[in-house]
């Protein structure tokens, strides 16, 4: 036998594994089967199941097997750390307000969207009556209060954002929640996106709760069994509030660590769906149409993007890059030239087979979507701008100025074939206008390491980095941490923030701050759109393409709808059904 004995062998193995997973096998130009910007299934029919000859009418019964490359290790929403955990918990956990597959806030455990007082400080939720947890206990305001106390407790591993601003939370009756905030919390709609039942246990013993491994909730399903490393079985919640639902008897989450194998098993029908497909797998999925395989996808709000460093790239990392600007990228004309030189459509077409939209906005979807005009691909303009900026073509075709070569380094995570191909295409495109791009990729642990481990993003030791990020449905915290000048990571602020470009624009700072202090969605959206537009003028980042959340599934699996947030794979699971 060949036991794996050293962590280094493992790292190597990981690299192999990832590269094997991400390689699209001999791709022909496939025809996209459905628009990528929407979940491809129509909205769920509301009628309960009844015997009928209509083939589109839901059928009750059946066991659905959902493949997942990762495994949830804990199911308490106050202690989850990975996206698969958030995804799986959505089978049994519900929130007061959630985001549907159209990217809109809809009331779930609340009767309607919460109302806000004139001054924005008092938020009132009316709760649905008669909702029961899968253990038979009724859901009331006490559970909402417990959830808040849980999030704020010592052992919680979730963001306390918003909850910590709640001064008092009162329950005038079991079905009314009144929260009084000490200051306006603009993204109040995202609060209580999950509810932890108040009988889960004592908060100071949260880590040993039985609930962590055997949870219950108000959602359509309840966990029956978890065999570590193998599968989780969910059965119907007997107390689920919608009569006749869920249609399925059981949902089994089967752990399939190799995505390649998962795709094969989807073809044979051993599983009905596979979570977390990447854009690079789409050509393979398209070829499996004859085997009864298709996919559902939604734009997530995340972009694959380039972060351009406006500050010095030697690690001196000042809070104000104007005192130590990047020798090349601090000049707006160079950043504009780079944007003009990049043919985003070609990247989307050639590397992603036209399955994605080119990225143009920091806010592509959701309640605050602000689509921006597409950036122009115009190498001639790029050359003109570089000439204007003083960069003259040198002997080898690469531009120079005052003895400095127009040479930039791009870093990304290693072992991701799609990213490597993207970098090579970018290098070609930039070379055409006289910019040299050298590629240096790092293991993702090293790439994403924080400033205390000398990580390149926090310390600013880079020219250009390529990765994926974007706002959750409420852009407040993302825009603040990624584009506000208060969030430039430095040693002094203990590397807080993600403004890795070291981008400073006083207007942007002000609009973000202003939007955080009002609760009117329309007004907030106006301010965020100003931010999105200004960012595209200043170009601290270049959005390459919009990332999708993709789930491949078999044709007999109906009503799978994908929510644009990465995590809610079970959005609408009560409506899932299997045709025989």
């Amino acid at each position, binding site marked *: *036998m*060949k*036991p*794996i*004995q050293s*962590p280094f062998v*493992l790292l190597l*193995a990981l690299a*192999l*594994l990832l590269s*094997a997973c991400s390689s699209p096998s001999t791709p022909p130009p496939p025809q996209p089967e459905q628009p990528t910007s929407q979940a491809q299934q129509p909205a769920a029919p509301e009628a309960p199941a009844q015997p009928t000859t209509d083939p589109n009418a839901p059928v009750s019964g059946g*066991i659905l*097997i959902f493949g997942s490359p990762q*495994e949830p*290790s*804990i199911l308490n929403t106050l202690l989850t*750390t990975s996206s698969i955990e958030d995804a799986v918990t959505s089978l049994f956990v519900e929130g007061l307000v959630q985001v549907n597959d159209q990217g809109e806030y809809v009331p779930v455990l609340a009767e309607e969207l919460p109302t806000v007082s004139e001054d924005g400080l008092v938020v009132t939720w009316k709760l649905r009556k008669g909702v029961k947890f899968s253990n038979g206990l009724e859901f009331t305001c006490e559970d909402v209060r417990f959830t808040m106390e849980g999030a704020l407790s010592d*052992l919680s591993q979730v*963001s306390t*954002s918003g909850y910590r601003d709640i001064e008092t939370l009162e329950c005038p009756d079991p079905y009314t929640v009144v929260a009084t905030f000490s200051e306006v919390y603009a993204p109040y709609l995202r609060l209580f996106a999950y509810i932890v039942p108040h009988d889960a246990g004592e908060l100071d013993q949260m*880590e*040993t709760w039985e609930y*962590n*491994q055997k949870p219950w909730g108000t959602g359509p399903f309840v966990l029956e069994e978890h*065999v*570590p*490393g*193998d*599968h989780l*079985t969910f059965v119907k919640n007997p107390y689920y509030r919608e009569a006749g639902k869920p249609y399925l008897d059981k949902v*089994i989450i*089967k*752990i*399939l*660590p*190799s995505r*390649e*194998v998962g795709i*094969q*098993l989807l*073809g*044979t029908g*051993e599983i009905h769906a596979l979570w977390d497909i990447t854009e690079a797998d789409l050509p393979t999925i398209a070829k499996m149409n004859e085997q009864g395989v298709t996919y559902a996808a939604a734009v997530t709000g995340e972009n694959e993007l380039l972060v351009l460093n406006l500050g010095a790239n030697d690690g001196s990392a000042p809070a104000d890059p104007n005192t130590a600007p990047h020798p090349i990228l601090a000049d707006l004309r160079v950043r504009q030239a780079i944007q003009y030189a990049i043919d985003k459509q070609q990247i989307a077409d050639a590397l992603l087979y036209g399955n994605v939209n080119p990225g143009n906005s920091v806010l592509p979807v959701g309640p605050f979507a602000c689509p921006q005009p597409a950036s122009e691909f115009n190498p001639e303009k790029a050359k003109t701008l570089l000439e204007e900026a003083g960069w003259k073509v040198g002997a080898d075709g690469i531009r120079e100025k005052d003895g400095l070569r127009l040479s930039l380094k791009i870093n990304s995570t290693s072992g991701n074939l799609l990213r490597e191909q993207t970098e090579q295409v970018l290098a070609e495109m930039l070379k055409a206008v006289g910019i040299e791009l050298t590629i240096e990729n790092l293991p993702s*642990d*090293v790439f*994403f*390491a*924080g400033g205390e*481990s000398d*990580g390149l993003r926090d310390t600013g030791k880079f020219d250009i980095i390529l990765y994926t*990020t974007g*706002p*959750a449905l409420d852009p407040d*915290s*993302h825009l603040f*941490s*990624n584009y506000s000048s208060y969030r430039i990571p430095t040693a002094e*602020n*203990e590397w807080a923030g*993600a403004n890795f470009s070291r981008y400073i624009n006083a207007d942007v700072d002000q609009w973000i701050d202003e939007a955080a202090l009002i609760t009117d969605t329309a007004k907030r959206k106006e301010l965020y759109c100003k931010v999105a537009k200004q960012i595209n003028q200043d170009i601290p980042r270049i959005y390459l393409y919009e990332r999708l959340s993709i789930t491949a599934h078999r044709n007999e699996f109906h009503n799978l709808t994908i929510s644009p947030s990465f995590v809610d794979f079970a959005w609408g699971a009560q409506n899932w059904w299997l045709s025989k």
Partner: protein
Amino acid sequence: MTTYLIRRLFQAALTLLAVSFILFGLISAVPGGFMTVYAEKSDMSPEDLARIRAKLGLDDPIPIRYLKWLGNLAQGDWGKSLTSKRPVLQEISSRLPNTLLLMGLALICTILVAIPLGILSAIKQYSWFDHFFTTLAFAGQSLPVFWFGLLLIILFAVLLRGPDGRPLLPGAGMYTLGEPFSLIDRIRHLILPISMLTFVSAAEYMRYLRSAMLDVIHEDYIRTARAKGLREQMVIYKHALRNAIIPLVTLVSLDLPSLFGGALFTETIFAWPGIGRLYFTAALKNDYPLVMATLVIYSALIILSNLLVDVVYAALDPRIRLS
């Protein structure tokens, strides 16, 4: 012999202590650490992160964390997984039976396949039989496991169909989900992973045995045995094999810890819930209590199996004296 054993066990304990220190240092030196899981959650405030880091005990300097870990271990506490909050021993023991089943059966199959093939290849040196299996052994040793496993799945679990039109063999897991327990179903799920493990390891064992046999059958005492009129079978199995098998015993004993360690690639491809994958996932998430426990137990087993090899050697070969 007793003093020898005591001395070796003492050395083993010291080695293990050193190993655990080095492992802890290496794991802690990995950039990022456990807190990277929060890095991309932009709604986490610096205060939230600081509170979580403190609660997880990640604020202490590495030597202090090591001493704390060692102190707890001395009291029999291996700690709790950072991600699942379950005691790490519980995590490991939930995977142990699966791992033992897979690796144990694979080891038995490997020995059953490798020994006859090794002997036959040696005594029929340069025959078509020898050429065929030696080539196959080379293939088994040099094929990338990941690719080979995928090939097996595509062949037996996708393309080849049984009489009922369903794939010949299941492609992943330990049993068919949603169906009652069935021994046949369990065996069907074991066929592909065991075949792959056997193919890869039998190649190694067979080549060792073949060369050892070739050395031995040209020795004088084999000629003597033949000269005194012993049957060929007796010569091979009684005189030659007993000597040729010694290196194989070493090899097998040194592989015994892998019964615990599992086989990462096989477990990954065939979705087998074994310890190899448990460890790998924990390492990816920087879940250091879990990583430390698996590595330290694994190291202990390697050290012990080395000791075992030395003792068995003395028993098999009287020329070796333990003193």
